[in-house]
């Protein structure tokens, strides 16, 4: 009781969270507010002429068919990447959770892809999948598949999904492995004694007990797909062919950096921000109820 008196001041807790607060304000809230401000302006690249236009940038945006196309592409892309990177991450983690010789080495190797920058990962895969040059592209062509990601939108989508999944699997693997190791062995052994098959043990015991990890990873993966895959798309396909791999974040980048249309680009990032905030809030509100901690 006596000790608590030392922390009685109301100021100290605020002082202690001040560094974190400052970081959030400077690096998150301030740029976000600037984006909101910019989205109401029409401005040339050098900032020499500025016109305040209220919601015109938003209205223009909602009238372009490409924007809706980009929404569709983003939904498809995130669903595919989240599904495969979570699924494969879980599969690998379940495999690596056994006691076999040299397991430490396998685990280390499984983590390495996460250390590769997205753009670099893209280049590595381009070397393999470039028609005419890449080994895998040649193998596919010899196998009778007309592999051509520069012209075929489906192939381009497959290519960026493969790179994004490969890049993200390690992260998911790491969290799933930690999650698996925290599940008490006694529960699983008891089920085994009762005669439950490994598959049944997985789906009725392990998977539900993993749900906090899975829930966390779904949110992280969706944020990853929405924002961090920019480098992959830019290097591998440039959003093409014919917009087949143009996601929302890539369009923000294209219109802002390549097209120097800062107002339009800012309007898009504001909408993107709202979507991701909404999505995360939705998940915490509804999906979290199904999670057992």
């Amino acid at each position, binding site marked *: 009781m006596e000790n608590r008196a030392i922390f009685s001041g109301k100021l100290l807790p605020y002082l202690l969270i001040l560094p974190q607060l400052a970081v959030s304000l400077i690096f998150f809230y301030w740029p976000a507010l600037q984006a909101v401000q910019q989205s109401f302006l029409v401005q040339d690249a050098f900032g020499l002429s500025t016109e305040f236009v209220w919601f015109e940038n938003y209205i223009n945006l909602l009238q372009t068919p490409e924007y809706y196309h980009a929404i569709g592409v983003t939904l498809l892309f995130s669903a595919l990447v989240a599904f495969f990177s979570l699924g494969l991450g879980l599969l690998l983690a379940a495999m690596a959770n056994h006691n076999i010789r040299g397991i430490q080495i396998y685990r280390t190797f499984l983590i390495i892809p996460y250390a590769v920058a997205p753009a670099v990962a893209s280049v590595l895969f381009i070397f393999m999948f470039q028609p005419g040059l890449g080994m895998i592209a040649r193998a596919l062509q010899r196998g009778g598949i007309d592999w051509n990601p520069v012209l075929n939108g489906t192939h381009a989508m497959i290519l960026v999904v493969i790179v994004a999944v490969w890049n993200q699997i390690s992260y998911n693997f790491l969290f799933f492995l930690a999650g698996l190791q925290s599940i008490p062995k006694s529960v699983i052994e008891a089920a085994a004694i009762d005669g439950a098959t490994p598959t049944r043990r997985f789906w009725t015991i392990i998977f539900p007990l993993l749900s906090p990890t899975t829930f966390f990873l779904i949110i992280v993966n969706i944020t990853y797909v929405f924002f961090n895959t920019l480098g992959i798309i830019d290097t591998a396909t440039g959003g*093409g062919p014919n917009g087949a791999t143009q996601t929302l974040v890539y369009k923000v980048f294209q219109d802002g950096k390549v097209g120097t249309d800062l107002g339009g680009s800012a309007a898009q990032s504001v909408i993107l921000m709202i979507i991701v905030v909404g999505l995360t809030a939705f998940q915490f509100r509804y999906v979290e109820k199904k999670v057992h901690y």
Partner: protein
Amino acid sequence: MAIRQLGAAAAVAATLALATPAYAVTEIQWWHAMTGPNNDVVVKLANDFNASQGDYKVVPSFKGSYADVLNAGIAAFRAGNAPGIMQVFEVGTATMMAAKGAIKPVSEMMKEAGEAFDPKAYLPAITGYYSTSKGDMLSFPFNSSSMVMWLNLDALKEAGIDTPPKTWPEIFADAKKLHATHPTCGLSLSWITWGLIEQFSAWHNVPIGTKANGLDGFDTVLEFNTPLETRLLEELVELQKDKSFDYSGRTNTGEGRFTSGECPMYMTSSAFYPNVKANAKFAYTAVAMPYFPDVTAAPQNSIIGGASLWVMGGKTPEEYKGIAKFFTFLSDTDRQVYLHEVSGYLPITKAAYEKTKDSGFYEKNPILQVPLKELTNKEPTENSRGLRFGGMVQMRDVWAEEIEAALAGKETAKDALDKAVSKGNAMLRQFERTATK
């Protein structure tokens, strides 16, 4: 003890740092996008200039890709510390010139600095791209190239083609013949819109847009969805079906398909030369771009690609004097000849071109003369002087998307071109609105 030593070292360093500005050398920042051997050329030019006099120091720094340099320059200008010289690619020209106040036109700067400067000394096919419609030079051409058709002579011979193709109908016929020996690609090209729209229009003396392709004003309107352009695209769509023609992407990432021997006919920049020389294991040559012989004006003249040096606004007269001296230094005939022969860039002065010609250099290196012959083929017209469309960097992507849709069989060639024109026009109107008047 250690701390005291450190303090002493800091004091010495501080004294040295304070002592240096006493020499009063004016520093000129030069932001560029050159890598590899081309970066060495930039560094050598700066070093040679700095050694040639003591008043000015040009400091080159590499800032990434062309788009990166442009964006870095824009950001620096907004923050109030733009470099003196910025290398900007040809499609960024409209963005730069629209920013009055952000830039200093080269001809104006040369006059104010009192440098001897004769615009007529420069090759009009090159400087025209970077000049106002009145002929005032806005930016200083640095590395220029044009588009040529690269041919794998061994592969052509194998397919029974004895004379290099000159026209599009001959190219189409040869691409079909090559299909037997090269089933994955007979013909291809890099920089799809530069080749099929920009160069194609200039070479056939037809406009891409009104107002002399935008040179006479930002209220230009695109109009390249013509029967002639449609005919070219329709032929290529047809050839794409069996890969007699095969698309290689929007930039030059597909160039390896020529040097590896996969694509025997490949249209791309003349700056591809050092790469071909180093990597092609077959007999090769480069010829002028093909044309439709029933278009009486064709071939007209080609247009350039590459980049130029822009001088940024708001600098001191002393800095402008230094930059003006540097540009005079770059224009020196012997230096231009040297740069041309070493790097493969096109010379920018008439004197340098004449001197290289007289020295017999082109007899040994005929490929290097092909782009120059294209550029100087005829006196440039309104349709072939160059182009200046706002947002051209992104416009190329928008046009390429439509061409891709046509080649993939999702749209007809005519629909694709109509869409490319209407989307492009929407972008032009947006740009016109933000351009400082």
